[in-house]
């Protein structure tokens, strides 16, 4: 497993849009570190998913990266430049959609997009007007363009907030849980729009709670908990790394299960120990669940070993398997497993 300490920091400077080294944040002396020495790098033209439970440190990290907060210590380079020395230069090339709503209450949607374009330095009135038209169409806002922002529903306001960010050209976009309040079609439309921009070179730093989104959009994912990065990989990498340990088997037998046979199965599952002591985070506690009279669901770390053992004992006990299926865990299950185990270890300490 890669941890923040293991993540290679030897990338070519030109490859990294963001590089964070040993970042720490403490809100006042004597208070706990909310960001505890994290390091990671985000390559150009990729979507970097920053996942974690509530209060893990996602938004604090994002606020530091967008210059809204100063860190206690650590180095950050964006576009190969020191964030703290070249703040204003860097800010001109980034976009930020924060998790809280932000809107100009007194303005109509069309006018607020136009104003936002102007604030971003889009001085040519005609170019701005064309851009507003394009954004209204892309984000399906034409029907509400003459509505005031404070008259919109939460979802509509969110759509305007997201659309607004595309009024200006940027190289890096920070999205802090951007799909909160959006309906499924608007959510999909947004994710596809982001994908399109990423193909044209945009880099995206994305925080979310919704694992399906992370899986759909992200090239790499870091999982943060208690201010530390506890896992970092591609979505497929995470699945391979942790999914191997967290698969479940469902077996349906031709006849109803009897108690002695279930006890034998339980013994097999219990013996399925963790791979090694170093692999605490990968470890899933074995579980066996009876489903109806003739089926069981087993969650274990080493699925292959358990299956081969079950195949051996089934004929010996006069049983016959009707159906067997092996299920890979979703990213959400993997996330829960990683964060859950991290919490267990944290509590043990």
């Amino acid at each position, binding site marked *: 497993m890669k941890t923040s300490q293991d993540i290679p920091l030897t990338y070519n400077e030109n490859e990294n849009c963001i590089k964070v080294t040993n970042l720490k944040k403490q809100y006042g002396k004597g208070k706990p570190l909310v960001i505890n020495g994290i390091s990671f790098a985000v390559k150009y033209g990729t979507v970097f998913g920053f996942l974690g439970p509530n209060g893990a440190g996602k938004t604090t990290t994002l606020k530091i990266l967008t210059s*809204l907060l100063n860190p206690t210590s650590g180095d950050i380079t964006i576009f190969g430049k020191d964030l703290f020395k070249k703040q204003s230069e860097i800010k001109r090339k980034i976009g930020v959609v924060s998790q*809280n*709503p932000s809107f*100009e209450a007194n303005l109509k949607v069309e006018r607020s997009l136009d104003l936002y374009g102007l*604030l971003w*330095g889009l001085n040519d009135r005609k170019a701005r007007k064309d851009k507003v038209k394009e954004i209204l169409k892309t984000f399906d806002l034409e029907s509400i363009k003459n509505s005031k922002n404070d008259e919109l529903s939460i979802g509509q306001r969110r759509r305007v907030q997201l659309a607004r960010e595309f009024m200006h050209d940027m190289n890096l976009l920070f999205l802090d849980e951007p799909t909160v309040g959006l309906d499924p079609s608007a959510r999909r439309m947004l994710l596809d729009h982001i994908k399109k921009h990423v193909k044209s070179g945009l880099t995206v730093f994305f925080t979310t709670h919704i694992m399906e989104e992370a899986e759909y959009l992200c090239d790499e994912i870091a999982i943060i908990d208690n201010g530390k990065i506890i896992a970092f990989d591609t979505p497929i990498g995470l699945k391979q790394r942790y999914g191997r340990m967290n698969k479940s088997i469902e077996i349906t037998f031709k006849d109803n299960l009897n108690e002695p046979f279930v006890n034998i199965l339980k013994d097999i599952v219990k013996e399925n120990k963790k791979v090694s002591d170093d692999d605490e985070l990968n470890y899933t506690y074995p579980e066996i669940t009876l489903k109806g009279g003739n089926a069981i669901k087993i969650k274990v770390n080493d699925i292959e070993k358990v299956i081969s053992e079950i195949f051996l004992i089934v004929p010996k006990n006069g049983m016959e398997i009707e159906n067997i299926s092996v299920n890979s865990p979703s990213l959400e299950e993997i996330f829960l497993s990683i964060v859950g185990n991290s919490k267990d270890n944290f509590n043990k300490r």
Partner: protein
Amino acid sequence: MKFTDKYVFVSGILLLLYRNLFAAIDKMFFIWQILFPVFQIYIMGYAYSALIGDQGINIGTSSISYVAFLTTGMMGFNVMQGSQIAGTIFWNDRKNGMFHQILAMPFNKIQYVIANLVTLIVIGLTSATAIILIGLPTIFQDMNITVWGISYTIFALVAGSIFFGSFTIILSTKMKSSETYNVFSNGLFIFFIFVSSVFYPAEGLPQPLSAAFYFNPLTYIADITRAGIFSHIDAFTNLEVLALTLFSVGAFVIATRAMVKLQI
């Protein structure tokens, strides 16, 4: 600071000023800024005039009517009243998430503070011009407009906007909610209004009260504005200019520091 940096800094302030004027302020505020002084000048002014009689009020060596005194005082009053908008813009921006968003854009907190103060200066000068035009019949006989005199008036309005704008920014950064801010600012503004020379002159008041008038920048704003419009600039006016400058610079420095220190 290089020229390009200065250009970027100033153009950022101008963009935020444009935003404040056309997006952040409710139109009703502008209407109220004009209607309120009209009410004060033409109703309160003439009503009190009837009470005071024809004795007039001394400005330097000459005497002016109470309505003329009040009209020029209302210009200073309007600057103070208008400064509430700096706090309102800030609270609304926080409530609607725009403060956070603006600072994530290529603007910083100092630009944000200055843009709010420039907004007040624009509002202050516009409403003062409107008051002069609306109140012209009341001051026409006594006024003596000179370039030198009007520059004092403009200075008083600009410095007054900076002082009261900074003051409301300091209050709004220190208060935890907009409700607390409103209670505090309304309470303090009552002190500013009534312990000032907006409605009545400081001369002739009992000593402790008269001294309290000169701890109030609104007194300087009203006095300097009048001195400029009626061309009665003397050594004391220049002393008031100095005092107002110190109040304004001090308030601006504290407001900027409070804003920079503010945790987002």
